[in-house]
């Protein structure tokens, strides 16, 4: 079994954060999203991984992951270029996959339960594909599967008005090499892309057996800022607390908190978990870091109250303000305007930013 990890896309819904990098490198609990997928693949015994890259961030992703040896996997890069759809991305991996089965994993997805059960379910039968599903409240917004009583997939429907079930497709699939013949028979959809759901539907129409596996635990597509915050919250809830950094006497650190060994929590600072604090972070006196917050490396916080937020890193915040539900990009400076005249906010804000003052 090989792995194909899709890491293209423009990340347009995550702008301005993705103006300067790919969405797969946005950190959740201080770890790039794509590393969760690699961790899941490795945990499932999949160590031969092809990473499909688009135009954006191909160098940054290669610089982070390298040949995969740091993660205990072997990585081959596959340059898709133009984002011509998930089926095109899979098709670009044909030579890499060869005659093996493979897991296709969207690199901006995070699953609580990993993919071991999905692969075991696929391997237990004579299937040509397996799809991961999850119950959702609004199936009209997703690709939805229609299943037999035994869980075999009868039909796939994209964003149906009358959904046959509430089981939406999670962005993780298992395929036998038969999928490549189906992809070759596809024509671009109305949006000019080769759709993976169309390829799976061709397999169904050919009489192939398609396995389904309902994912337990949460699943997040981290495509939007609100999704990053939600994924950050979910991951932090499950983190193992570990305080390796310096916590001065007079500082208050409670709850599930992870602090890197080079981080410093000064006296009169308060940290209430779940919180993750990365390397070279200094939490100065008068600062409150509240639940569900991740502070990225090389960041200094002073006087601020911050919670349910992600600070990506290389940032300085020194302001007697409350910051909540926020995603703060790398290299940001937030300072107080107190005493400055004329009174008012002073902003240097990039394109596609979103502020609530």
């Amino acid at each position, binding site marked *: 079994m090989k792995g194909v990890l899709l890491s293209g896309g423009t990340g347009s819904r995550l702008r301005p954060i993705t103006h300067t990098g790919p969405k797969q490198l946005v950190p959740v609990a201080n770890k790039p999203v794509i590393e969760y997928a690699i961790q899941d693949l490795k945990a499932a015994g999949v160590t031969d991984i092809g990473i499909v*890259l688009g135009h954006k961030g191909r160098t940054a992703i290669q610089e982070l992951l390298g040949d995969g040896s740091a993660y205990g996997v072997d990585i081959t890069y*596959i*340059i898709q*270029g*133009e984002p*011509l759809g998930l089926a*095109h991305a899979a098709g670009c991996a044909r030579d890499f996959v060869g005659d093996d089965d493979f897991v296709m994993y969207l690199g901006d997805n995070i699953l609580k339960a990993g993919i071991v059960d999905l692969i075991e379910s696929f391997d237990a039968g004579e299937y040509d594909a397996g799809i991961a599903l999850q119950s959702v409240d609004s199936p009209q917004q997703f690709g939805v599967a229609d299943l037999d009583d035994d869980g075999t997939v009868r039909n796939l429907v994209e964003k149906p008005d009358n959904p046959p079930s509430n089981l939406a497709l999670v962005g993780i699939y298992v395929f036998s090499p038969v999928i490549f013949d189906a*992809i*070759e028979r596809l024509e671009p959809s109305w949006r000019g892309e080769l759709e993976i759901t169309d390829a799976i539907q061709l397999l169904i129409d050919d009489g192939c057996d398609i396995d389904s596996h309902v994912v337990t635990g949460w699943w997040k597509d981290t495509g939007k800022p609100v999704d990053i915050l939600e994924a950050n919250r979910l991951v932090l809830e499950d983190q193992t607390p570990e305080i390796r950094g310096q916590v001065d006497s007079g500082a208050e650190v409670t709850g599930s908190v992870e602090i890197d060994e080079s981080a410093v929590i000064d006296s009169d600072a308060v940290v209430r978990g779940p919180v993750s604090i990365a390397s070279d972070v200094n939490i100065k006196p008068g600062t409150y870091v509240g639940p569900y917050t991740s502070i990225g490396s090389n960041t200094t916080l002073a006087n601020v109250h911050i919670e349910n937020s992600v600070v990506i890193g290389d940032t300085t915040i020194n302001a007697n303000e409350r910051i909540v539900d926020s995603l703060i990009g790398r290299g940001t400076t937030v300072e107080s305007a107190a005493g400055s005249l004329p009174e008012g906010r002073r902003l240097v804000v990039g394109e596609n930013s979103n502020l609530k003052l």
Partner: protein
Amino acid sequence: MRIITDTCSECGTVVAANELEAERIMQCPGLSCDAILRFADLPEDARRYFLNHHDEYEL
């Protein structure tokens, strides 16, 4: 739709034909790889197919 790729003989990076055709001659996009990849290095039938269906390979 036929999906055409080429594999760098030096580092193993796989490159889609649409990327090769757009650049015609390019340094391998694999990090630190100095190999030169050319659209012209694809088999003739693959090149002909790609050029005859060029519109399908563009969004």
